[in-house]
């Protein structure tokens, strides 16, 4: 009965945003990211793989949160959500929440991407590298050296990812703004 209403536009937008984000973030990662242990750069292929992994991770986590939280909405919030999903409208009161949740999404996704990237590097170590890293850690402990280098790599990765995230969010916001402008001034086009 309702099969004729499909979320195809959401899927199309998601694919577009995902490709934009991966392209931009891979470019930033490839230029700026330094990998331990010897501050090597990442290859373009590696950068695309890293960017795809962390972006897909945030999207999947986001969908999981949305799909599980939407069932808990109060009726009032649910009308607002339906209004937004089906008719692309929001009232001034929801605009505030949209902006706030945009900020929260930005920082949450940044933290998620950072955690994801660190875990990903850990996951992709070969057995030899894993062994070498363990040795290194053990030696450091014995010599009483604080793991400064570890902190430095994390902070390098964090600042690179923050930049990448900011750039990709800017691009996506620009696309959304463009759509809004086209919508407002050329209603016949779409």
């Amino acid at each position, binding site marked *: 009965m309702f099969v004729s*209403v499909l979320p195809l536009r959401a899927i199309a937008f998601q694919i577009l945003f995902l490709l934009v984000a991966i392209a931009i973030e891979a470019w930033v990662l490839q230029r700026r990211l330094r990998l331990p242990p010897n501050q090597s750069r990442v290859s373009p292929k590696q950068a695309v793989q890293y960017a795809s992994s962390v972006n897909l991770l945030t999207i999947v986590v986001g969908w999981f949160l949305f799909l599980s939280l939407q069932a808990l909405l109060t009726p009032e919030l649910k009308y607002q959500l339906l209004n937004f999903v089906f008719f692309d409208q929001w009232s001034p009161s929801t605009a505030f929440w949209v902006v706030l949740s945009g900020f929260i999404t930005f920082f949450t996704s940044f933290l998620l991407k950072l955690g994801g990237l660190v875990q*990903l590097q850990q996951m992709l170590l070969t057995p030899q590298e894993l062994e070498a890293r363990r040795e290194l850690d053990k030696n450091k402990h014995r010599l009483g050296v604080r793991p400064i280098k570890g902190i430095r790599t994390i902070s390098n990765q964090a600042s690179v990812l923050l930049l990448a995230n900011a750039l990709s969010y800017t691009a996506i916001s620009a696309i959304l703004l463009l*759509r809004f402008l086209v919508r407002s001034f050329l209603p016949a086009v779409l």
Partner: protein
Amino acid sequence: MKEILEQIWKQFKPPRAFSWQTLVLVSVFSWCVSAIVETEALRDLLARLGWMFLMLGVGWGMSSTRINLLGLVLYPGPWITGALACVVLFAGWNVDLTRVALVSWPLISFAVAAIPKLFPRLTFSLPDPPVRQQLLIQFLLSCLLSAWFQFHFVIQDWLRAYPSLLGDSLGRSAFVVRLDERGFSVPRGVTLLNLAEPLLKQELQALPWADVERWLLERETRVAALQQQVLQQTPRVEEDTLWKFWGDVPAGLPEYTLKLRAVWLGPSSNLKGYFLEKSCLITQAANATVINPSTPNNGLVQVTCQPVGDKIWIDPQPLVQGDG
């Protein structure tokens, strides 16, 4: 005739005893048996086994099939095997598991693709880092596909709870498309107003004329009570709380024209919403004169109603009283 049969046999003969063609033949065989078997449970089991052998056979047969699509190499095998696995797991139960089947299809297909890499010799071994990276991306992509399926079903649930949304244009939406833009369904308000008509007639025609006039004066509470009666006559839908009945007796129209309105307070393509209207002409029957207003005089009041009109969009001004 014999030659043709031999030709067919040559075409279908498994090259080895243990090959994917054998499994497909076994599945055909178990379907044939299940068609003959009388016992319900056994027939079901054999049909399911048939699907399972087909799944294993096709999965094996297509394991090296690849499609080259503009330089993008795709392996359709796991998807088809995953779909068949969903049939084995979810079809033919007493409850409808289509939803579960579609949502888990990408994940099952991922499992089909990943198992040969994680268990190459039937024992677990950690694959090389490049394969790990590839598996991770594949896993996240199949999660994303499964989330899209789930989102589709969430939208179906919303439309089931708010069927009037389908009576509106979804053209502006950034999320959904409507494939049959022509086939607008009527908002539920039309149904509610049509249900209200016989109730209204029944109620007013039992009243003496003076009480009818009082009813019209007190229409705000009376119409609200009418709405409650209507809602008791129909299975409840979540959106019912968003319809508000409203009665209006505009001046200037023949006395008394009750405009019974169903105002939609929920989401709509126009921020202010819309209302539906049924106008009912309430008259005294011509041959009667009111001699004694206190005695019940059945049949003296006549109520004639028009069919519900089109949606009336509410302009930026709030709903005005007496727009005649």
